[in-house]
Structures are given as C-alpha cells and as structure tokens.
C-alpha cells in the first residue's frame, strides 16, 4: 500500500494548468473592486433616496398630508422602504464584521450568526414589511383610479401586484438557499 508521504509527494508535484495570473493584475483588480464596492454603496443609497424623495414629493403634491387613504398608503410605503434600507444596512455591517482571516471555527460560527440574523429578517421582518407595502399600495389605488387614465391605472394595478408576486417568489428562493447554507454551517460548527 502507498504511504501518505508518497501521496503527498505526488500531490505537490501536480502541474497547475491555469496560468497567466500575475500579482500585479490581482492588485489592480483589488483596487478596482474596492472602488466598485464604494460606488455600488453610494449608488444604492442615491437610488433609494431618490425613490423616497419621489414618494415624499408625490405625498405633498397630492395634498396627501390631509388624513385619507392616500396619506396612510404613502406613509406606509415610505416607512417600510426606510425600514428595509435600515435592515439591509445592518446586514451589510454584520457581514463586513466577519474577517476573512479568522480561523475556520470562528469564521463558521460568525457566518452562522450572520445567516441566523438573515433568516430572522426573511421570516419575521420582510413578511411584515411586504404585507404593509401591499396594504399601502392598495390604499393608493382609489387615488390612482380617480387621477389617472383607465389604461394607466390598469398598468399600475397589474405591474404593481405583478412586481409583488415576482418579489415574493424571489424572496422564497433566497430563503431556501440561505436555509440550506445555514444547515451546512450548523453541521460544520457542530463537528
């Protein structure tokens, strides 16, 4: 029977067929990656801020500060969107706190903690946000019907609920994937 040392000798002699990677390329990519991440964060915050501004603009333009269905609807939608941004910011901060150079044991535990949090977000917070968003959108519909043409109203109705259905399907997929990962991390930390 072959000994482990003989196998090790064969292992370290194996040729690496993937070539053409240079340290300089990786350094450049690393620098670009840092800039891209920063740009992405700023971009996301700008888009969400614009969306919130648009909703706020609509809120005041439609005289929605008087209490009616439109007020409640828009307030709900704006509030849950801000809450969603807050949750995402917490997730990003928690993920960044996991150091890539932790030991495997610490890393697995921290990753598990992160995905436990994500599961809580997906199972508890997101459904509440989702329901409130639907309620908010539904409360807006009478105002849409009264102020928009029939065609545009139907477009808002179908695309609005259509988006929510697609979003729900997307959330369920993410939840399943993260659940599988959580089970895997659980096994790893139990071992």
């Amino acid at each position, binding site marked *: *029977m*072959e*000994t*482990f040392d003989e*196998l*090790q000798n*064969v*292992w*370290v*002699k*194996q040729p*690496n*067929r*993937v070539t053409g*990677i240079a*340290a*300089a390329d*990786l*350094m450049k*990519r*690393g620098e670009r*990656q*840092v800039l891209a991440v920063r740009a992405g964060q700023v971009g996301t915050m700008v888009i969400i801020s614009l969306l919130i501004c648009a909703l706020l603009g609509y809120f005041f333009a439609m005289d929605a500060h008087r209490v009616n269905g439109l007020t409640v609807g828009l307030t709900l939608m704006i509030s849950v969107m801000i809450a969603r941004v807050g949750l995402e910011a917490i997730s990003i901060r928690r993920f960044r706190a996991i*150091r*890539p*150079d*932790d*030991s*495997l*044991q*610490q*890393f*697995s535990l921290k*990753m598990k903690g992160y995905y436990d949090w994500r599961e809580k977000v997906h199972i508890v917070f997101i459904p509440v946000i989702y329901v409130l968003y639907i309620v908010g959108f539904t409360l807006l519909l009478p105002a849409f019907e009264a102020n928009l043409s029939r065609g545009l109203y139907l477009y808002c109705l179908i695309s609005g609920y259509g988006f929510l259905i697609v979003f729900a399907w997307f959330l369920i997929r993410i939840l399943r*994937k993260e659940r599988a*990962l959580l089970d*895997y991390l659980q*096994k*790893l930390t139990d*071992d």
Partner: protein
Amino acid sequence: MDKKARFNSLFDQYYASVLRLCKGYFGGDEAVASDCAQETFLKAWEALDGFRGDSALSTWVYRIAVNTCLLHLRKQSTRKELPTTVFPVVIQENESMADEDKVQKMYACIQKLDEKQKLITLMMLEGVEYPDIAQVVGITEEALRVRIHRIKKNLTKCVEHGNV
C-alpha cells in the same frame, strides 16, 4: 517593505499552493479553483494592511483560502461530486500518467470527506505544519493529532481501493 512588494512576495510564495488546495476542495475543477485562488489573493490584498503578524504569514493566507473555499458555496448552488466507488482503469504508460491517475483518485477521495476533514487533509498534503493547521482550523493541536492518523489511513486506503 511596501504593500505591493509584500503582496508580490506573498503571491510568489503561496499562489501555487493555494491553487492546489482549492483544486482539491473543488474536486479538481481548475476553473472554479482558479477563481477561488484569485479571490483568496484579492482578499489578502485588501486585508494585508490589517495583518499584524499575530500568526505566520502562511497561516494567515491559508486561513483566508480555507474560508474563501467555504464561502464559494454562496455562489455555487450545486456542488460537484465525483463518483468514487469504482475508479476507471488507467493503463499506466509512464510515471506521469500514473501520478495523474493518483491525483485524480485523491480528488475523488477528498470529496468524500466532511468539510473540516477535507480542509485538514488538503493542508496536510500541502505540507503545512500541524500547529499551523490547528491555528487555521481553530482547534487544539491535540484534537488535530487525534484526527491526523485516521485521515492518513483513510486517504491511502481510499486511493488504493476506492473507498474510505
């Protein structure tokens, strides 16, 4: 030494070893292993300023590599499993072919192990010192030594007969 020089030296010393480790982890898939090795060094580049020398540089790189392999799961929904019960019969024309056959068998055998054993085995094959492996994994040296004998025995047996 400035950051670029430190990174160059790190890359020259450990890239081949990290690539082999990733290849072993992903069952010999060179494309995935190459992605994973590059991701390891991208992270190392980003984290290099934070390296304070609390451990050996090699331990630090292997920690990043091992965690990057694990994180690769986030991107891969399905994982490649190599059939290992029966190995294909290879006519051994020369030493290089015989070695290639052994490497393929090792990939297949490593895939049968659980994640921790897989990573410990790969570091042992890379010749990483036991205290360093214990630090990378985050277990005591005693706990590691308990596993080492079994890992060595199982790998040699598996390469020989096709089962753990």
